[in-house]
């Protein structure tokens, strides 16, 4: 199939929770190199709360995304609360009232998520933030989907671009957030937010590809 049912999609959120849990220490370690070493803790705090708040038997894609978004927005604070909260809020909004989610719906969700995050946080590409994973990933998805019309293929393109984007932060100098304090010394290590964003995009892509296969 070239779309998945909203009703089946909560698994996408449950998988992201698992991935963040598994990478808690790794993300904090990356943040520790040039930030304050709490990115994994911050993320896992929000994501793990979500595990017990969603009724996985009944929740659909929209509900699970909405719940995750609300928890991040309402209970996490910092910058990651509102930024990832906005991310998943835009996805939930894009999925609302849709029985099935297809490639163009997915493209619209990601697109508005990225632009809302840009607006909210004021960072731009190259500032060494999660946008350096997210923006290329969204563009790659759109280009591939426009060319092929194939949702799954576009997701694979997204994954490759997100990883490339994450790697690209290694050679960037941080211009926003705590790491910006280090100037040139922030070069040479990955950005924590770009790494978590890549993990999340990867996980979403894998989950959705499974859903597309199943039907």
């Amino acid at each position: 199939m070239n779309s998945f049912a909203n009703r089946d999609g909560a698994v996408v959120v449950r998988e992201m929770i698992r991935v963040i849990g598994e990478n808690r220490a790794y993300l904090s370690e990356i943040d520790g190199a040039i930030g304050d070493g709490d990115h994994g803790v911050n993320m896992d705090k929000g994501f793990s709360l979500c595990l017990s708040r969603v009724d996985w038997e009944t929740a659909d894609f929209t509900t699970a995304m909405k719940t995750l978004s609300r928890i991040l927005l309402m209970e996490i604070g910092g910058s990651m609360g509102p930024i990832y909260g906005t991310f998943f809020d835009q996805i939930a909004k894009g999925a609302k009232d849709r029985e099935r989610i297809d490639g163009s719906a997915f493209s619209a969700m990601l697109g508005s998520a990225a632009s809302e995050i840009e607006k909210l946080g004021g960072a731009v590409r190259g500032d060494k933030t999660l946008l350096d994973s997210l923006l290329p990933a969204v563009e790659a998805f759109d280009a591939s989907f426009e060319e092929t019309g194939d949702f799954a293929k576009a997701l694979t393109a997204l994954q490759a671009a997100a990883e490339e984007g994450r790697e690209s932060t290694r050679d960037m100098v941080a211009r926003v957030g705590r790491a910006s304090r280090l100037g040139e010394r922030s070069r040479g290590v990955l950005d924590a937010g770009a790494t978590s964003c890549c993990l999340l995009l990867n996980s979403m892509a894998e989950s959705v590809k499974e859903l597309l296969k199943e039907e």
Partner: protein
Amino acid sequence: MQRFVNDPSMAVEDMLVGFLKSHGDLVEGTENPRVLKSRTAPVKGRVGIVTGGGSGHKPAFIGYLGRNLVDAVAVGEIFSSPTAKAFYDAFAAADGGAGVACLYGNYAGDNMNVKMARELAEEDGIRVMTVVANDDVPSAPKGEEKKRRGVAGEIFMWKAGGAKAALGGSLEEVIAAAQKAVDNTRSVGVGLTPCTIPAVGKPNFAIEPGTMEVGIGHHGEPGIAVTDLTSADEVAKSMVDIVLPDLPFKEGDEVAVLLSGLGATPVMELYILYGRMAALLEEKGLTIHRSYVGNYFTSLEMMGATLTVMKLDDELKELIDFEAESMGLTQFGR
């Protein structure tokens, strides 16, 4: 790490317990454990004053809860913005029907969380207007003032807003007074040692012994220059020289001055700095109407100091002199 903590990830919770115990005459908790309010709030028909921010800045932010000052505070993790929900709940706790003035500092997380909280509050019919303190001169060049961080100048903003609300000002008037305070306030910080967030366990930046970081932020954000640590008199001069030209302050101006330690610098040394600063201000023809010297806005156990100067007019003078009672600032009216 020579510190008094239990589980470091619960440091803020543990602190709030002690704070509420000690200041039960002035402050009380709310349903949201991360929102504290003044016992006097809300007053029907009086504008509510709300602020919030990361923890680790004592007395800021909860230390300014009290009479004629701040009515409700959203409390974040150490050096991390409170949640949108905390800001929202603080708005609700402070609202006496005349609207809420959210007076906070210019940080990415706070901007985002306040923005979202405000949307929620307005859906619920609570009017919220904001003033964003951006008094920290070195954090962005002239012309880009909107990018500057808020530092200890926030205290003048709260003082002005809180007094205006107590005097019966409308939301627009309270906002105008707080904005006037911010527009007329400039600050600079100098850092001598870093600080350690207990949950992290090691300093999250370094300052070489024998050097100082001029223009450093309240969480160790980078300054504009790392120089040799010179004499107190020279440090005083370089701080005054950054603050005065920016507004600019000019001969004949009356000013309020706040010199805050960053945490671990002995208060004795703040007075050493202040003596020289006051002389420099007076040499430039400024009149110091009122001064505050002490640990008013700190960064855990950082060593260093921030200088804040506010240009006064009759209204700001009345507001700054107004009686106030809180853990961080108690003064009789003049």
